[in-house]
């Protein structure tokens, strides 16, 4: 009985089959990876484009805000507001200014001016 079964049994070339399975699996994985990565690249590209658009929009909003800021703080606008009474200026009279030294023009324009309020010192 056993002898008869062994005679009808088709021998399987296991190493060869395993090799093919590995090759096919490798090719399938490579193909799927390629597709997956391509899709990922497209997806990243779309994300990148959206981010770029967002960045541009934010930059534009920033520019818009800067323009509005400049318009509202320009001399012309401030003078207009001064005339309308929204702003007030109190003139400092000559008597209230004390010069601590010669008022030669400082090297840096943003340097503090050597003046002090006389009343404040008393």
């Amino acid at each position: 009985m056993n002898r008869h079964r062994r005679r009808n049994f088709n021998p399987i070339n296991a190493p060869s089959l395993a090799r093919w399975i590995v090759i096919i699996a490798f090719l399938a994985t490579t193909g799927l990876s390629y597709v997956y990565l391509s899709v990922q690249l497209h997806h990243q590209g779309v994300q990148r484009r959206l981010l770029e658009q967002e960045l541009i929009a934010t930059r534009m909003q920033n520019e818009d805000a800067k323009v509005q800021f400049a318009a509202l703080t320009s001399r012309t606008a401030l003078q207009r507001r001064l005339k309308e009474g929204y702003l007030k200026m109190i003139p400092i009279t000559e008597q209230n200014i004390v010069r601590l030294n010669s008022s030669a023009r400082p090297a840096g324009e943003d340097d503090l001016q050597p003046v002090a309020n006389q009343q404040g010192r008393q």
Partner: protein
Amino acid sequence: MKWNGRTRCALVCVFFALLFSVFSYRLIHLQMVMHNYYSQLAAEKNVGRNVIPAERGAIYDARHEVLAQNVPVATIVADGTLINNNAALIPLLAASLHVPPNEIAEKISSRRPYVVLKREFPDADARALEKTLQDKNLRGIRCERSTVRVYPNGPMLCHVIGFADFQQRGIQGVEASMDQYLRGEDGYRYIERDAQGREIVLYRGLERAPRNGCQVYLTIDMGLQTIVENELDAAMRDYTPIKATIILMRPQTGEILAMANRPNFDLNLRSDAKPEEMKNRAIIDMMEPGSTFKIVTAAAALNEHRVTLDTMIFCENGVWNVGGRPLHDHGHKGYGDLSVQDILVHSSNIGAAKMAVMLGEQKFYEYIRRFGFGDRTGIELPGEIRGMVHAPRSWSKISITRIPMGQEVGVTPLQMVLAMATVANGGKLIQPRVVKTVIDDKGKALGVLRPTVVRQVISPQTASQIAQALRGVVSKRGTAAEAAVPGFTMSGKTGTAQKAAPGGGYEKNKYVVSFSGFLPSENPAFVGLVVLDDAHTKDPALNYGGTVAGPIFSRVAEQAARYLDLEPHEEIGTPATAGRVALTNAHR
């Protein structure tokens, strides 16, 4: 041949072999032979060169106040080949763009791929429109981003700043002269689009980032400019001249601190401006300077040692006949002997003419040219003229007596202020400049412009003597007592020139009145010039430089001295505040 299964099978195989051969041939033909042609065709359809526009640089004053900047806008464009729903699109666009629906319908039904629906559409509104289109799945409309130039101060400093056109090219003023720095360089990117027109980021090609324009910083101080503009507006109201100019300049460096002209225009509404309003008269208007030119005559005579300040010159008691034509002192008020100093203080025409005669034509001409008259000053503003100075060979017999008092020469207001700055600056002629520095988009200064001495025109001693003499002009005995500034020493010279008539000769009762001076006399912080063309006073006898331009200068200088924190001299008395002479049509 037996028509059996084997034969039929062979025939089918042959048929398929032939069929696939045809396909293969076609594929080879398409992929290899026609490759370039179809690649080109595909590229034309799907690949495009996307221009990334550079941002135009901003303009600032010396204290970093914004004078010109960009505001983002969008151009709304329709692509007729992609529009999928006209019925929904038309009312939406009409409402968003504030354009009549029939106009929109006409434009988008043309099926052209590029139709501009609206220009300079606010960016925030464009973003809202894009979102609505996306939400409603409406295709064929896109917003192309760009910027437009805005000027926060409107008409203030309009002639100096100038403006740029819709393509962001500088047309006038600093916008034009510094255009190569301001405009930057556009970048680009090669992109591929899908069937719906969206960019396939994966296939991005060659790209280059844009280089934004540089920031330009001017020498103008808007604090001083405001003072000048306000006084100029008041002068226009009070004296209704046809044009007027005020310039303030730092004599040691040539920096223009303020420059204003009237008439002027609003830079944001430039399309409404008239050509006459757009002229920067400080550099393109030629005028006869009148008596302010006597500083050139006196400086030349002193520098050549033909006279000293104390040399007495006989002023012919008011009338000097020379070359068959009488030369009068103003008001026919006769002067006898006058010192050179008093010739300047009283502005004697005859005295000035005699000094020029002592010098001789050639020498006098040389000094006129050495002071910079007849040449462009080289300021960074477009359209500057040279003025008009004839060579001695073209002079008439009486030219040597007329030019010393500022006739027969044409000068620009800027040239005149430079001549006064030369006296204030120890005799050195400095090149004027309006641009302080240029900073690139990475914050690096491309070069800070240093003061340039053009030449030593007169010796420092001569300059000091002239400055000393000119102090008398604003004293009580001078022609411009009302130009004095309380608490400060000041030197200056008045000018009252009859207006040259277009057909030759002079126009009656029309004058160009001016005052040029500097303050303080010893170490000047600024030089200034006030010019009014055809000012109107109630009493024409008061239409003089000393009575009209002088007080304006005084008010400007007083405010400027406060602004610049100049220390007043306590020992100098406080004269009455300069008033305006009797009013004009505007207040009648």
